[in-house]
């Protein structure tokens, strides 16, 4: 989650509606990512909480709109984010209804609501009841996992959730079997290696873009970002592509990631036919310049390069207009990703060989 960083300014409230061990797991997981944590638990459960490097506050009674004790506690804290820990059988309506009611009537300051599930304490999910899956996932509903891996996000609409998914599909009467596996790390990046280790002293190459970049219906090791990681083993390669992302969303994702890490090279894929916007590309270019990163853009559907005018030497198009990584059978997609990785290899090598942008501008 891009927004959860150590320098997040507001108070981070963990609202325990679950067993102590679930709440502690959620706190421990979040402690590594944010500071300013305040655990808010029922009076009867307060004593077992160590509260060593976070505050613990308590309230009396059940969570309802009329629980003045909880409202007073939360008002005192003024949270920026409230994470509701769910450990029981169900997601309880009363907790969310109460918090939203108080916010709507300005009894409580507006906070972002998240959920932490007991079975998955390392992941917190933005709580958005109005969230709708992107319409284009409809076309793949029977064979695709992309609707299983997206989760609401307050700014980007949706992001990839941490996941390890495998789907085995049998098309008709035992025939046409295929299987694909998709793993996504805690930062929402698709795996580019078996261990997905981030080696701190290695330069970073980050990839952004829509379903084609993410590699829908491909195994992790068939996506071009995995192949790039193999080719550039002294680099960290991260694929932040997400199903159905528009160019605008990819640019927002790029902005979010610049808040958390410093890529040296950014690859931005988009569909020239679907949602090309010169403004968005310029925005991406400016962002990269501000952060001393080199930008490579790729039109994922083979439209000729029309962007080189302002993208200078790194304007890049799909190597062959006849190969589209988003279409065709799985085998064709695999070929397309291989071809893309090979074509990108040369461009990346030439960027690495050049002196860094900051040195160039110093001269």
């Amino acid at each position, binding site marked *: 989650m891009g927004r959860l960083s150590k320098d997040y300014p507001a108070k981070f409230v963990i609202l325990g509606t679950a067993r102590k061990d679930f709440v502690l797991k959620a706190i421990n997981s979040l402690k590594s990512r944010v500071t300013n944590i305040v655990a808010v638990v029922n009076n009867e459960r307060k004593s077992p909480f160590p509260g060593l490097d976070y505050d613990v506050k308590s309230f009396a009674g059940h969570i309802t709109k009329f629980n003045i004790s909880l409202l007073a506690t939360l008002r005192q804290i003024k949270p920026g984010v409230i994470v509701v820990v769910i450990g029981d*059988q*169900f*997601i309880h309506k009363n907790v969310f209804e109460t918090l939203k009611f108080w916010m709507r009537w300005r009894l409580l300051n507006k906070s972002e609501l998240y959920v932490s599930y*007991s*079975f998955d304490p390392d992941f917190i999910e933005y709580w958005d009841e109005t969230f*709708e899956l992107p319409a284009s996932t409809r076309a793949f509903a029977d064979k695709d996992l992309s609707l299983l891996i997206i989760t609401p996000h307050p700014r980007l609409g949706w992001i990839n959730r941490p*996941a390890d998914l495998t789907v085995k599909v049998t098309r008709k009467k035992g025939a046409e079997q295929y299987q694909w596996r998709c793993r996504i790390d805690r930062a929402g990046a698709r795996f580019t290696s078996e261990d997905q280790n981030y080696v701190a002293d290695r330069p970073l190459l980050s990839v952004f873009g829509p379903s084609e970049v993410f590699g829908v219906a491909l195994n992790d090791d068939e996506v071009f970002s995995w192949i790039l990681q193999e080719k550039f083993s002294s680099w960290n390669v991260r694929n932040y592509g997400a199903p159905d992302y528009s160019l605008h969303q990819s640019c927002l994702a790029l902005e979010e990631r610049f808040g958390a890490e410093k890529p040296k090279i950014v690859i931005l894929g988009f569909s020239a036919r679907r949602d090309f916007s010169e403004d968005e590309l310029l925005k991406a270019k400016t962002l990269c310049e501000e952060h001393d990163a080199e930008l490579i853009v790729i039109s994922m559907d083979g439209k000729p390069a029309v962007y080189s005018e302002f993208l200078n030497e790194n304007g890049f198009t799909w190597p062959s207009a006849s190969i589209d990584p988003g279409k065709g059978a799985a085998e064709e997609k695999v070929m397309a990703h291989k071809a893309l990785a090979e074509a990108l290899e040369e461009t990346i090598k030439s960027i690495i060989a050049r002196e860094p942008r900051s040195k160039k501008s110093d001269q």
Partner: protein
Amino acid sequence: MKIHLISAVWGDQYTDLFLNVCLPNQLTPGNLRAFGETDAVYKIYTSSKDAETILDNRFYKEVESLMPTQVVALDHLFRSSGHSTPISILLMTQCHKAAIDSANMANAILVFLPPDQVYSEGAFARLIEIASSGKRAVTLSGVRLSKETFVPAFKEKFTDENGHMPSPSRDLVELALGHLHPITASMYIDAKSPNGAPTHLYWKVGAEGFVARCLHLHPLLLNPVSKSRLIYGNFDTDYFQKAAPLPSDYYIVTDSDDITAFEMSPVDKSVGFIGASKFNIIGYARFLKRNGHHIHKYFLTEAIRIHSTQTDDNWEAIDAESSNIIQAALALAKLPDSILRLWAFLLEKMR
């Protein structure tokens, strides 16, 4: 008619039960084979460890030969083992959430097949008929049985030469009546120690069966009116209210001859809170006041007959008796809780 048959299953015990009892029971002419003319997909949500067992299973392979299948391993949900029951329900909800999203996107009808349920022969064929008639949801009682004793008896009685287990309704009920789970026994109106959460109430009709009144019914089929997502609670609680909000959209299976389903649970499955005294209508009215939405209350108005022989006038009389109690309890549930509490207190003192 596009249909997603969905099951969420994981763990050795449930996977075994699903593969070697539920699937052979489903693989019969009147059940899975009845989906031949429809555009049906069988989808299983599981872990990759259990997926391996599923993919190797002979009955699963038979399902593959009948219709397209999809096995989805959601390993990030099953990372730690030994989940307690409450978390298992939450995990099940996550699987159903994924299944509902997928069905909504594909504009498909959902058939929820729990990995611990067996059906009467012809149940799925009937389900298709009902769905074709325009009903949006099919719900049934899914009475709970003791797995340890029921499963061997079920296999012995119904396994045919192909290893399939077609179970005609009355034969199934007859067998089931001898293996009722302690939770089921605690739901009888005359139970000495009644269940503290009486989601079902049962009235015995001799040795032939019982009449059930159920606040909660298992939704076997859903053709959602609104393509809403599963947000709160379990798939068979709040979600249903949004997906099919009108009582007229529901087909309640009121006769076991029509469709029968039984759920097989370990005998030591928590029975829940057991009341100290016998059933009393004030306590039940208070329970109804606190639990269930308008669809659940609508379920209660139907008498459900679970029977192993032909029904007669005696059943009519029991139907009427159960109706009187339910109508009275629903009327009482409209009173303020303070009055009901006082009433309950006075009754207790008088006792």
